[in-house]
């Protein structure tokens, strides 16, 4: 008999603009000791399934149909009191963000002991013993000491281990993990996934693993259920679903995942989810956008960084000796040639975004030189001197939800750089160019008078690209431009960036933590760690023959499901 059974689950969220069916006729069964992945993009309803199982649907959402059974007993119609005894005791839950999942003003011990005493009715001393044991099992070193610490004294990965310990502490039969590794770095992610898989096998616990990440699915799940707009579109053995998907959506989803094993020209089949208006062909060479003759030709590297450094003060003090510094970037050197796409890859905190922000003038470097087309930008002090150069380099940001000013219309957002740099003489001309830009990025004129909140993440990223192109730059910095997007949207945006780069002959600095994306986009790559560059190599060389041990380590952490196929 299956441990957990969901049959025809349907969840509705009423709102004044109509009732929204978040999950519709969803049925799955979970066997003991099995890891079942639920995969889907944002808005697919996968988290709603998890919340429904544990009886904590966010209000005003509620079940309007279906049943949920645990060991053959229905649990979706239980009284709150009885359901509470099941939560934590028979079903454990793990959430996404370890930084906010723990009460900041209680020690780990208190939080563990409270839960253990509640469910297992042990004495406080026994509960503490068990808690120390648990921490040991989830891989926290020195558990008998660390148990008395507060959450802020643990790193993100360690906190997620504590969260897992809390979810396991009453020996539940089923665990629901909602994006448990999304907030973590790749190397930590791998450890946590290993840990979770090991614990499930050992204790014969069934787990529903909710994620958007195909890599995670391929790594740990036995079976996978694919969700699309609230419906289950496909379910089966993981290898079979990933290897030979049946449903068109699954095919599209898998083809959109950047391949780590070889470079392909474009992502195929990626229009399943978001139907983007056809890009209007614009003859760039004869268009205003192509007329950039005011740039002097320059033979050397377009961008040259010499000993570039950035030191932040993390703790201020009147006494210089008591200040604490963070060297985010330490004496970095590299060149970017005209027309090249240069990638920087590294984990969070490696300093890659700091470099982008220094190059584009958001941060002022504390040391070293930035030369652009032969001009030393670090030596310039006045806005008048530097603005002509600023115009030539623009940036596409990471977070589509904060990179556009929500109080401005889309057309004004894109027009602002044109007007500021006095690129055209009349408003009519300016807005005509804005409309063309919207066509070029595939949104069309209809987008012009809307506000950013009316668009999806992918569409906003297109607006952000249009804004970056509005000054007719020849150098574009992309800082994790797709890391906040769903994988199929990411494929579309990457396709767009590739097309633009080719058509306009842009030079690009492309920053990402995602190696497969780097492989698809870049000509050369720099690998960064702790503010230093470990290795610079041609992309294909790096992937086939990494020299530095950190590069090798990063490559070993890449999702492998494509590799099996070839």
């Amino acid at each position: 008999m299956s441990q957990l059974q969901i049959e025809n689950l349907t969840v509705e969220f009423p709102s004044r603009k109509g009732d929204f069916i978040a999950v519709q006729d969803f049925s799955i069964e979970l066997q003991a000791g099995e890891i079942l992945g639920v995969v889907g993009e944002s808005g697919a309803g996968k988290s709603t399934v998890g919340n429904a199982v544990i009886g904590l649907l966010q209000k005003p959402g509620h079940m309007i149909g279906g049943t949920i059974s645990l060991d053959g007993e229905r649990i979706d119609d239980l009284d709150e009191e009885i359901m509470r005894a099941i939560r934590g005791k028979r079903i454990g839950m793990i959430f996404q963000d370890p930084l906010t999942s723990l009460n900041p003003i209680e020690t780990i011990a208190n939080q563990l002991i409270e839960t253990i005493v509640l469910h297992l009715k042990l004495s406080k001393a026994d509960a503490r013993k068990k808690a120390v044991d648990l921490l040991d099992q989830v891989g926290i070193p020195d558990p008998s000491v660390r148990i008395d610490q507060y959450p802020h004294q643990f790193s993100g990965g360690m906190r997620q281990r504590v969260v897992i310990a809390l979810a396991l502490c009453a020996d539940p039969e089923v665990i629901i993990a909602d994006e448990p590794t999304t907030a973590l770095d790749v190397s930590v992610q791998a450890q946590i996934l290993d840990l979770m898989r090991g614990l499930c096998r050992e204790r014969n616990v069934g787990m529903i693993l909710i994620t958007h990440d195909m890599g995670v699915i391929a790594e740990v799940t036995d079976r996978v259920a694919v969700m699309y707009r609230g419906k289950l579109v496909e379910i089966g053995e993981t290898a079979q679903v990933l290897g030979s998907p049946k449903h068109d959506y699954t095919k599209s989803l898998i083809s959109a995942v950047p391949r780590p094993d070889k470079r392909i020209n474009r992502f195929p089949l990626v229009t399943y989810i978001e139907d983007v208006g056809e890009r209007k062909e614009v003859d760039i060479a004869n268009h205003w956008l192509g007329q950039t003759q005011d740039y002097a030709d320059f033979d050397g590297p377009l961008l040259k960084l010499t000993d570039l450094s950035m030191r932040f003060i993390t703790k201020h003090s009147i006494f210089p000796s008591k200040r604490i510094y963070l060297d985010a970037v330490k004496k970095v050197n590299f060149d970017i040639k005209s027309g090249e796409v240069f990638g920087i890859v590294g984990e969070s905190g490696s300093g890659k975004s700091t470099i982008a922000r220094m190059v584009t003038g958001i941060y002022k470097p504390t040391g070293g030189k930035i030369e652009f087309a032969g001009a030393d930008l670090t030596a310039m002090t006045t806005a008048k001197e530097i603005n002509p150069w600023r115009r030539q380099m623009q940036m596409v940001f990471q977070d589509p939800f904060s990179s556009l000013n929500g109080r401005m219309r889309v057309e004004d957002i894109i027009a602002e750089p044109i007007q500021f740099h006095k690129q055209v003489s009349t408003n009519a001309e300016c807005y005509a160019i804005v409309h063309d830009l919207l066509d070029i990025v595939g949104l069309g004129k209809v987008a012009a008078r809307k506000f950013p909140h009316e668009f999806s993440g992918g569409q906003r990223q297109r607006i952000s690209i249009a804004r970056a192109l509005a000054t007719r730059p020849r150098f574009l910095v992309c800082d994790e431009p797709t890391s906040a997007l769903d994988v199929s949207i990411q494929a579309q945006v990457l396709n767009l960036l590739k097309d633009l780069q080719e058509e306009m002959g842009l030079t690009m600095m492309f920053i990402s933590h995602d190696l497969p994306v780097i492989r698809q986009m870049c000509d050369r790559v720099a690998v960064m760690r702790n503010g230093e560059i470990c290795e610079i190599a041609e992309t294909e060389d790096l992937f086939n023959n990494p020299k530095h041990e950190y590069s090798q380590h990063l490559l070993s952490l890449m999702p492998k499901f494509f590799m099996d196929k070839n």
Partner: protein
Amino acid sequence: MISFIIKRLLQSMLVMLTVAFISFGLFRFVGDPVSNMAGQDTSIEDRQELRKSLGLDDPVYIQFFNFTINAAQGKFGQSYMLREPVRELMAKRFPATLELALVSSVIAMLLGVPMGVYTAIRRNTLLSKAFMTISLMGVSLPTFLIGILLILLFGVTLRWLPTFGRGDVVQLGWWSTGLLTASGLKAIIMPAITLGIFQMTLIMRLVRAEMMEILRTDYIKFGRARGLSNRSLYFRHALKNTLIPVITITGLQIGSIIAFALITESVFQWPGMGLLFIQAVGNADVPIMAAYLVLIAFIFVVINLIVDVLYVIVDPRLRASSEGD
């Protein structure tokens, strides 16, 4: 921890110096102290003498220095109006104001915190709505009007409670208390309620807003998913986190309690410092104004210091970062 407190102490001294400077400016440059002190028939020689004894011929920075030294000892000279040393006038009035402020703060806390918690947890019940309405009334009814209405009802119409004064007081050393006599207790009821309502409203809204915010956090959600009872979630996890900002803001509100005490004292003819201050303002009695200013700033600074220390005790995150100091 220690260096954190030292830092706070230094900041407090700076605040006190600023306030001392303002009240010195008030004393020295607003009106002429000599003509305010001297009677109509004082001779020119006597005036000169007075000038000298007040040190008004010294350079300004020396005067400020002397003023600060004196102020630190509570010496603010003589009241122009009452011809008595300010220190004694204030000392006589201080217990009345402090008792009033304390009693009303206790009332406000005892009612405000539970009401705030209740309205945050049971947002849509009738009682919750009633509490919210009361709190809006509390913000919208000026303190003096509440006092007048209470007087009209319990004093004039029902004749249950006295409408003015402190009743009988008992001397405990230099401290005079009204809390030990029946008439004193009766007399403090209406003023304390009048003063407490606004504070209660504020505490209740603050607790409610913070509590609602915390109930939305992930760790409460995670606690719920572990099957913790509502009681534990509300009172162990949420309320404790709520109290951190509540402590701060309540501390900052001490100033307003004293300011509002001044209104209450005026309505009920309560013989406290506030009443003295209002009379001083009406009569341009600068020494009393200056002394009152410094005293309020001092109380504020002391309470802020206590709040800061409490803050560090309650919040382990701060404890850790201040250890690194």
